[in-house]
């Protein structure tokens, strides 16, 4: 109860802050409920153009809800979905069935998600989402999305192989096709439209105040216009992992030195504006971090793939001591903590190194791409490694010598690592630097199972107001499983458009 009050206060503060910095034109500021003040009216406004926004817009159009307008603040369509890994969990997908996996079901998926959610996930929503997985898959296929042939695997936390992946290994394969399908079917998309505020009258969201012609991240750009939505405003604005201030407020344990896998526009202002208008934010402190990041590339990058070799076959050493400092195969949280203990005396990160034998993987895609893009390097000797990354050479040599003995014995007396995949280290090496990155916000706006946003004071839906995707909270609980965001966002487009149809 106390945290709820805190959030309401935070919301109100954000609203006042927003008004103070914005120079609202007279029509927008003076008569917030004056219908004549609208610059434009449409039937449905969708905020954001990632998986959730694109699917909601396309499904709303197909449900004949009228004119559909997608507002995207960036200069590209697709949000974080356009750059994600393109993993998509679909129980009973055709590839899974062709692999002879016949005992999977939506219930099986939900069970896995409930375990990962550690009691904080929402079974009703997860079930509704899982039951529509094949619809979302079919929408992609119909739009021309290509998935990897015969590729369906079991990813972390799932008990069945049910994750398919797009052809190029990025969600862009899906966002581009859904965008193009929407354009063909009459959805209107506008770039550089920043949501300044919602217009709430009584218990209803009537429309939005938008900064048109906005140039990210410059708040002074663009002009304010007011757009009314006859039937719905759908908030699909994504997560806030790039909002350093909000991140620090909701989870002070998140180190400010942590970079982020998300696109630069993943900031939380739309969610905060919604909260300022009464929406209930929950679980905001639940933020997922990956311990596999590289400081030498932007976004998610290749590091995760490279370390799938490095953690197993190589070692991680501190540049400060030349020594190993953790079990390279430990869990995410333990690894993140150990990695972040590596600091110079001024507190700045002393990025630890991970290295493994080059000659074991010269043609491996993961190595070729990493070297090409200069987020990893080939070194010919420990001497070269030590001088390039300023590691104490003698200590480094001792570390490798001792480790190689441990590999031969098959045990790790220092950290208790499982050594079945470890290899004797022998130059040349592939070496990269590591530091964790913030990845996904489980928390956000509380909705009911139809995607209707709940009012914090009444716990009932705010009329005409819906939300889908990473901007929502309480769906996944403590941690979201890989490949389940794509599923949730695409299916919520079906669920929300049906709810609007029923309410309209």
């Amino acid at each position: 109860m106390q945290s709820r009050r805190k959030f309401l206060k935070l919301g109100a503060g954000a609203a006042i802050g927003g008004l103070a910095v914005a120079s609202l034109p007279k029509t927008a500021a003076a008569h917030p409920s004056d219908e004549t003040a609208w610059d434009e009216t449409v039937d449905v406004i969708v905020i954001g153009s990632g998986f959730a926004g694109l699917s909601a817009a396309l499904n709303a159009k197909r449900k004949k809800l009228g004119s559909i307008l997608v507002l995207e603040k960036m200069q590209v369509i697709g949000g974080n979905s356009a750059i994600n890994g393109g993993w998509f969990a679909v129980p009973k997908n055709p590839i899974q069935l062709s692999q002879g996996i016949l005992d999977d079901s939506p219930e099986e998926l939900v069970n896995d998600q409930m375990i990962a959610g550690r009691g904080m996930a929402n079974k009703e929503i997860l079930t509704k989402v899982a039951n529509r997985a094949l619809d979302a898959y079919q929408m992609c296929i119909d739009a021309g999305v290509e998935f990897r042939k015969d590729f369906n695997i079991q990813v972390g936390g799932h008990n069945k192989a049910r994750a398919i992946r797009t052809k190029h290994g990025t969600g862009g394969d899906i966002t581009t096709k859904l965008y193009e399908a929407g354009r063909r079917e009459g959805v209107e998309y506008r770039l550089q439209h920043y949501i300044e505020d919602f217009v709430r009258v009584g218990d209803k969201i009537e429309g939005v105040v938008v900064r048109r012609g906005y140039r990210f991240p410059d708040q002074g750009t663009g002009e304010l216009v007011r757009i009314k939505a006859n039937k719905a405003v759908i908030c699909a604005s994504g997560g806030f992992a790039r909002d350093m201030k909000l991140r620090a407020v909701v989870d002070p344990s998140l180190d400010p030195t942590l970079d982020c896998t998300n696109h630069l526009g993943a900031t939380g202002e739309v969610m905060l504006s919604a909260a300022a208008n009464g929406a209930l934010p929950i679980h905001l402190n639940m933020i997922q971090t990956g311990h596999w990041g590289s400081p030498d590339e932007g976004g998610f990058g290749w590091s995760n793939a490279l370390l799938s070799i490095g953690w197993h076959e190589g070692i991680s050493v501190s540049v400060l001591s030349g020594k190993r400092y953790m079990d390279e195969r430990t869990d995410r949280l333990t690894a993140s903590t150990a990695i972040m203990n590596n600091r110079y005396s001024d507190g700045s990160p002393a990025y630890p190194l991970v290295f493994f034998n080059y000659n074991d993987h010269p043609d491996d895609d993961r190595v070729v791409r990493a070297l090409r893009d200069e987020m990893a390097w080939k070194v010919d000797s420990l001497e070269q490694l030590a001088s390039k990354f300023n590691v104490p050479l003698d200590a480094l040599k001792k570390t490798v010598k001792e480790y190689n003995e441990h590999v031969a014995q098959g045990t790790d007396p220092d950290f208790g690592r499982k050594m079945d995949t470890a290899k004797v280290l022998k130059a040349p090496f592939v070496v990269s630097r590591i530091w964790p990155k913030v990845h996904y916000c489980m928390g956000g706006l509380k909705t009911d199972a139809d995607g209707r946003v709940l009012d914090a004071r009444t716990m009932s839906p705010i009329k005409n107001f819906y939300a889908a995707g990473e901007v929502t909270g309480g769906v996944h609980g403590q941690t979201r499983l890989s490949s389940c965001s794509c599923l949730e966002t695409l299916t919520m487009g079906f669920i929300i458009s049906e709810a609007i149809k029923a309410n309209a």
Partner: protein
Amino acid sequence: MKKLIMSLALALAMVVTAQAGDLVTIKGNTEGRSYHKSLYEEGCNYCHPGSPKKQVTDAACVDCHGQINDIEITKHLKMPEANPHKSVHYNQGASCLACHAEHTRKAPVCSECHRTWFDKM
């Protein structure tokens, strides 16, 4: 006049393969692209209809250069997949302004992640 400019620009485009050119001083403190010099003779109106303060839209670029997927890239690409005009992330869904600027050099949106693939343009 607009037609003439367009056909001039198109002719130019065919010769020089649609590069907007280097940044040069146009007038006073204003810099612009060398191949756009003739457009500036009309003032700012061609790109900023109504007022120089008006936000430019892609229409100003597309009029002469065509749609994103149709514009061939003649610059050396790091690899064939690094073609931002046929990007697996954005394809048609990218504004020209995501990567290009007229009055200043700009880092393309792709370089947020792919740091070694693209230069400032």
